[in-house]
Every structure is written in C-alpha cells, then in structure tokens.
C-alpha cells in the first residue's frame, strides 16, 4: 500500500532494487493478515511468500514457544497446500493447531534429533516448493543457515517460518543477532479478553514486528487466531483509544 508521505522517486527506486533482488523472477505474492492495521505496516501489504520469516515468543514464551507456535500456525493455516512442521522436541499438540485453523490433514510433522537436521529438512521442503508453508522450530539460527533457508524459499512460493525456541531463557538474547529473514516477529501473551462472568476469554497477543526488510518496526495488540487462523484487532480498541499495556500500568504504580 503506497504511503502518500513517501516521494515517488523513492518508490520507483525501491521497485528497481526489488527487481534487481528478485533476479529476473516474477514479482512474488504476499499473504495478507487481513487486519488493515498490520498489513499497512508491511511494505508489500502482507507476508511475502517465498521468503523467510522469523517468529519468537516474548518473556517465558521464549522457551515454551506456545503463543509464537499458534501465531505461526495461524499464518500457515492461511496458506494453500500442505504444511511441513519440523521440530526437535516432540510436545506439539495437534488439536491446538486444528483450533488455530490448521486442519490435521494438511500438516506433515517431521521429528528430528537436533536443530541441524531441522534446518536441513526445512530447506529440503522449501526447495521442493510443493508446501504452502514450512515451519521449523530451532534455537540458534546463524546468518549462514538463515541465508540458505531464504535462498531455498526464494526458489518457490512456500512461506518459510522459523520458530525460535531456546532451551534457556538466557539464550533468548540470540534473537538480537542478524539473520537473513525478511520479517521478524515477537509474540507475547496479554491478559485475555475480559468476560462478564468468571472464566478465560479469547487470548490476546502483543505482536511486535521487530525487523522488516524495507519497512519499519511496529507493534500491535491483537486477538489470537480464530478457527480460520485469522487475527483481529482488539474488540474494545476498535471503538476506543488504546489502553496502556498492563506492565506500564504496573511500572507507574
């Protein structure tokens, strides 16, 4: 979506660079989130297909990778075709992915021994190009490894999602290291939607776009994936001004 504040010279220059980077290949498609506020911050109006995207959990989610996994499942659910999900730890519970819109018939799981084979299997899946999305759960992701994945993804239209999952909280500092990913997301759980009665409402996420190639960082407060994998703006924010997040309230008090 072109921004009126950006001079047209920049836009044409950017298009030129993109053409050079694409190396003669056709301009690729994107997968929009379907949430206008999020898509507007992404330079192409959505997640670029045939590119590498990185997702990590914030806070305690850096180790459990629960919210981030659902975020990735929601993205994968909105692609077309089968999904390859490679992991080195076998605690993913398929019914939860089904609830995020990823039907069990679409997902092929690959249980690997270590991060290295997860990356190799994901790369193999991307090179084939028959998958709608390829998800890999790894801890460390070096520049070289991510570059390989990015090149493999560019050869097709599969969406590559790397879920960063560290063994220790201290390792999560690794997320600051540069990789070849096109976008980089961090997803943290927010207090769930308030209900008029006792109970737990729809989950809410604080979604940070930490890095975005040819775009700016942004953060959003969103409602978790529904049964078709779609995110939504907070229902009480659509009509009201945003409330400060819980931790800033606590810090002020």
């Amino acid at each position, binding site marked *: 979506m072109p921004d009126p504040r950006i001079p047209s010279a920049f836009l044409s220059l950017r298009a030129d660079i993109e053409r050079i980077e694409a190396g003669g290949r056709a301009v690729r498609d994107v997968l929009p989130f379907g949430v206008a506020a999020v898509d507007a911050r992404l330079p192409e109006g959505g997640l670029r297909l045939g590119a590498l995207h990185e997702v990590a*959990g914030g*806070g*305690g*989610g850096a180790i*459990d*990778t*629960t*919210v*981030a*996994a*659902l975020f990735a*499942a929601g993205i994968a659910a909105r692609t*077309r*075709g*089968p999904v390859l999900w490679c992991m080195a730890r*076998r*605690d*993913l*519970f*398929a*019914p*939860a*992915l*089904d*609830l995020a819109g990823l*039907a*069990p*018939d679409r*997902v*092929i*799981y*690959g*249980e*690997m021994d270590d991060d290295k*084979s997860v990356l*190799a*299997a994901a790369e*193999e*899946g991307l090179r*084939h*190009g*028959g*998958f709608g999305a390829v998800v890999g759960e790894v801890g460390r992701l070096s520049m070289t490894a991510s570059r390989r994945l990015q090149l493999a993804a560019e050869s097709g239209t599969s969406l590559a999602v790397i879920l960063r999952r560290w063994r220790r909280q201290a390792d999560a500092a690794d997320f600051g290291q540069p990789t070849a990913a096109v976008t980089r997301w961090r997803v*943290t*759980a*927010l*207090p*769930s939607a308030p209900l008029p009665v*006792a*109970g*737990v*409402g729809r*989950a809410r996420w604080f979604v940070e776009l930490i890095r975005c190639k040819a775009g700016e960082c942004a953060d959003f407060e969103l409602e978790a994936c529904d*049964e078709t994998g779609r995110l939504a703006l907070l229902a009480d924010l659509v009509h009201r001004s945003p409330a400060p997040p*819980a931790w800033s309230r606590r810090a002020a008090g």
Partner: protein
Amino acid sequence: MIGRGGRQRLVTAADAAAQGLRLHPGMAAAQARALAADLVAHDADPQGDALALERLALWGLRLYSPIVAADPPDGLVLDVTGAAHLCGGEAALLADIIDRLTVSGHAARAAIADTWGAAHALARFAARGALVAPAGDSGRMLTGLPIRALRLAPETVDGLGRLGFDRIGELATAPRASLALRFGPELTRRLDQAFGRSAEPIDPVESPELIQVRRVFAEPIGAPETLARYTLQLVEALCAALEGRGLGARVLDLRFHRVDNRIEAMRVGVARPVRDIKRLTRLLCDRLETVDPGFGVEAMTLAAPMAEPLDWRPMASDLTAPAVADIGEVIDTLSNRFGHRRFYRVAPAQSDVPERAVRKIAPTAPPTGERWPSGWPRPVRLLARPEPIATVALLPDQPPVSFTWRGSRRRVVRADGPERIFGEWWRRDGELDAVRDYFQLEDEASARFWVFRRGDGEQAATGDLSWWLHGLFG
C-alpha cells in the same frame, strides 16, 4: 526330523517339546523312538529345506536388505549396512524380522554384529529374540560363547573339546601356529572372520524374475561424479525395463562391487511406485556419500526388489479443482535422508483422554477429513507426562488460587473449567472410576496453563485430589 547320516538313521532336528524329552540331534532314530513312544517323526528333506531357505532369502531381499544370502542349514545372513534406516534403525529391523517370521509360524532369533561370523554366533548362542551388538563390541561378546558357534566341522569341535578348549575366548588367546598345525587352516580362518580380521564377502541371492541392470567397468571407478553419472545410466536402463513390464519401483538397491571383492550396497525406498528417472537418480545420488568405493568399483548393479504396477493416469480429472502439488516426492527424499518413521501426519483418535486423542498416520495417506471436536480448549504444548503441582485451592471443586510448578509460584488471575474427562475402562481396569477435571488457568504474567485434578472431589474412588499440570496454552 529323521534323516540318514552315514549308514544310520539319525535325529536331525527336534522341536522344543522333543528336546524336553531329551531327544537331541545326532541321536539314533531307534533310541529316540524308544524314549518317546508316540514320537511324530518326519523324514528329513535337505533339498526342500535348502530351497525353502533360498525362498526366505528372496523374501529378505525384498523387504530388508540389498545383500541377503542363505546361511545353511538354518539361517539367513543380511548385510544391513545402508538399509537399516528404512525400517527405523537396527533394533526395529530385527524386531520386524522376528515379528513377521513368528506370525508365519517360524521360531526365529536374530542378531546384528560387526561381522557375519559374530552375527552367526550371537544369533544362535546368545540372542533371546533379537540382539544388537554395539559397533566394535561384538569381539568382546563373542569370547564367552562356546566353540560350536564358530561354524567349524563337528570333528574339530570335538578335538578342541578334548584339548580342554570350551569357549571362543580361550581359543582366541591360544597360540595360533600350533592350532593351525593340528586342526588345519579352517580354524584360524573362522576365528579371523568372526573377529573381523579377514573379510568374508556375502554372495547375495538373486532370482531370474528380479528386475535388475548391471554395468561392468573396464577400469575401476571411484570418483563421486563418475559414480553419480553411472547411477543415472543404470536408472535409465532400469526404468526402461520397468516400463516394459508396466511396473514402478518401491525399493531400489544399488550395489557396488569393489575390486577387493566386497560389495557396498545402499537401498532407497519410496512410498508409492515410481518410474521417474530424475527422481530415482536424485534419491540414489543423495546417499552416494555413504558409499566407500575403496580402491575402486568394478561393477555396479541396480535392482528393484520390490516393484508394483504403475500405469499412466490422467493428470487432472476435474478442471475446476485447484492443482494440488504432489508432495510424495519430497516426502520420499526426506524419508530416505532422515529416516522413515520421522515423518508422519496425525489424525484424531476416538478418545477424550488428551494423550490418546492423536494417532500417527503415514504422511502420504489419503486425507481423513476428520477433525477434533471444536470448542474445547486444547494446549499447544502438551507435556510428555503430567507434572505434579502444589496448589492452593479454595474448595475441592474450585480452580486453584495459586500453584507452584517447577519451583516458581504463580497466582491465578483467571480460571475456567472444569472439563471432566472420564477414564476409559475398556482399555484398563484401573480407569474404571478415574476422573480428571481439567481447568484452564491464567496467571499474572498472562501465561495460560492446562491443569487437572484427579478425582471429582466427592468420591474417593475417582482420584486422590492431586493436581497436575498437563499443557501450556501460552
């Protein structure tokens, strides 16, 4: 079994029941009949046995390994190097062999070791069922076995017994020169073969109906590129042969006959019959790096021990349906590279107990169309086994106010539940009264947990009211 040994009629084989009556092979038939009046004796048929063993070897060739040979009178020998991964590892391969033979009514024992001699000895004298000797360790395991295990002539075994040799370990440490002088070169040769000091090539079984192509080289080849080039040529020839019969390969064996009389082999498997030259070449070339050409390869053989009918099918039968990418190819590539059991799909199973609600199916299985019942919260990470938590719960049927998991205490802000799941008494008697009450908890840091309490809080038989954490929603 009674057969003829020299001029006498002897017992040649006896089943477990007969051995219980102290009948043993080598005993005179008349004596056996005297010991057991109602003895059921069959005439031995050595030729029939040999033929049956040959057929069994072909069966092994089709299912397990590119190099299989009969090891008469009562065994098979398989070279599983480069083939065990297709069955999910060496132990799984042995278990599968024994299962299939048991189902077909044969008593079987099997062992995997570094050498043919060691595997022969371990399977017959050490294994109860299946035994996998760790690599490099079979020499040590051999030392405790009786000398009969060495595949020696009975006279040699008797002679050694008279000299006081009982175990292989004693023989291995004895001076070789005098042993060779007394018993001939056979004894030291068998010892060396068992301990891996001298080579013992396996002459693989072949059958005329096996589809295979062979290429012999004037000069030994060894460079990886050369091997890959000839692999392509062999695949082309094999595919032509397959096409003539309307078949597609399910399993491919590529054997490299080295100049030092060893055969290096590898096997690749595919989920559906394939006759695509590019794809098969790719699968084979991916594994070329596991082949050691040694001083050179003088012949290569490519065979399709398992082939199934493959006919041309229309590409698309419905113009309106979206094109579905064929992922069978990439699944085959991945499976051959990383192992067959690693890739799977899941399908809902008929169970409310969370850990039983999922069953694995083959990645290329047709879509089931089934989904889990929606509307019930399910965590994205399910712990392998529930972990005990210490809780503060107001009343027996209220969710906890706070709980301690892995050493940290969390205060519950919101909670939802219970979702009651009853034990499945038709699976286990102990679950007749069992009840789990599942709660969804959200703590101060907005992390969500799936915990359950054993028991319904009213009847002690339903559970002991202990609390467990089973999953994380995030």
